[in-house]
């Protein structure tokens, strides 16, 4: 193989996945740019954004990789009904880890910004926003990852190649969408209380 062949193969193989996640990223960016009022109302929220988005990718990407490996090994049946115990544990672990890490990110961001002497929203607002968005986007991502990986596997596609692009595309999209929903809910609730 020449350098040219390697480069051409690598380019063609990566382009569709990168293109799909570019579209997801642009839509996420438009949602973020529509959140300017909330970002002003909750100082410190912008600092949390990369950590929260990365957590969605890391947690649910790993869930997808785990399920697709188990499908290859015959450890899990590609059926959602039937209540497979392994699948339930993997999903529960992903949701629990997603929530724990989101709350940790909120506490760490609050602490760092406080030490730096920056203006930052109350800790309760940041934690509540992180947890609500973590729960909502977690549920949505579990649904998408499990459904697409199972459907792809049943149609003879390699689930390993589906998981990466799927999670980077929908992770940003759902992560940002539910962050907007969560911050609006929390601001509304704190206004009522």
């Amino acid at each position, binding site marked *: 193989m020449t350098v040219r062949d*390697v*480069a051409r193969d690598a380019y063609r193989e990566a382009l569709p996945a990168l293109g799909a996640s*570019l579209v997801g*990223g642009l839509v996420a*960016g438009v949602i973020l740019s529509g959140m300017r009022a909330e970002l002003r109302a909750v100082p410190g929220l912008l600092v949390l954004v990369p950590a929260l988005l990365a957590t969605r990718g890391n947690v649910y990407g790993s869930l997808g990789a785990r399920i697709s490996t188990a499908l290859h090994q015959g450890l899990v049946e590609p059926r959602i009904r039937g209540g497979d115990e392994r699948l339930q544990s993997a999903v529960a672990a992903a949701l629990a880890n997603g929530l724990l890490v989101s709350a940790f990110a909120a506490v760490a961001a609050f602490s760092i910004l406080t030490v730096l002497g920056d203006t930052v929203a109350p800790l309760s607002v940041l934690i509540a926003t992180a947890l609500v968005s973590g729960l909502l986007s977690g549920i949505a991502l579990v649904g998408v990852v499990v459904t697409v990986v199972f459907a792809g596997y049943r149609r003879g596609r390699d689930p390993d190649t589906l998981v990466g692009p799927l999670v980077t595309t929908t992770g940003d999209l759902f992560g940002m969408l539910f962050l907007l929903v969560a911050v609006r809910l929390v601001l509304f609730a704190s206004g009522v209380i």
Partner: protein
Amino acid sequence: MPTEWTVRAITRAMLPILLVLTLVELGSGLVLGRFEAQLLQYPALLALVPVTIGTAGNLGSILAARLSTSFHLGTLSFSPEDEHLVGNAVATFALALSMFPVVGVGAWGLTALISGAQLPLRTVFAIAVVAGVALAVLVIAVTFAATYVAYRFSLDPDDVVIPVVTNTCDVLGVVVLFAAVQLLL
């Protein structure tokens, strides 16, 4: 050995690395915090944030996965004449050159539709393309370095390199975007 499928075992395997990666990502959040005023003033720049982070991370993880596969197949050598190394670097650069112009036009166009255009297209386009070219160079350097370190220490590049590279490139995405905004705005 594969992780047992219980909530406890999966959490024990994942949580420590997730917490460390979260701290790394907070680093990029703090960089965003440094130019929050500019980002809030110009919606197109705010719209560039997730897509720049995502594309940088994806370029890194794709390159790392390909190098890791060549490494496992025994076809990778760390020499400037190695066709896998050079070919994949060329592809990463070409991918960045294809993606970031679209990123710039897309971010400008979509936010112009919704919030109105506060910045001229050429400024947003230039910021996206300059950031993209700089990122391609950094992504290639970081991925080569991480793969080389894994190889020297006989670590499996699949386990170590991909998460490290993906999250490092996320942070670099924000840092480079910050630099491009300061330079071109």
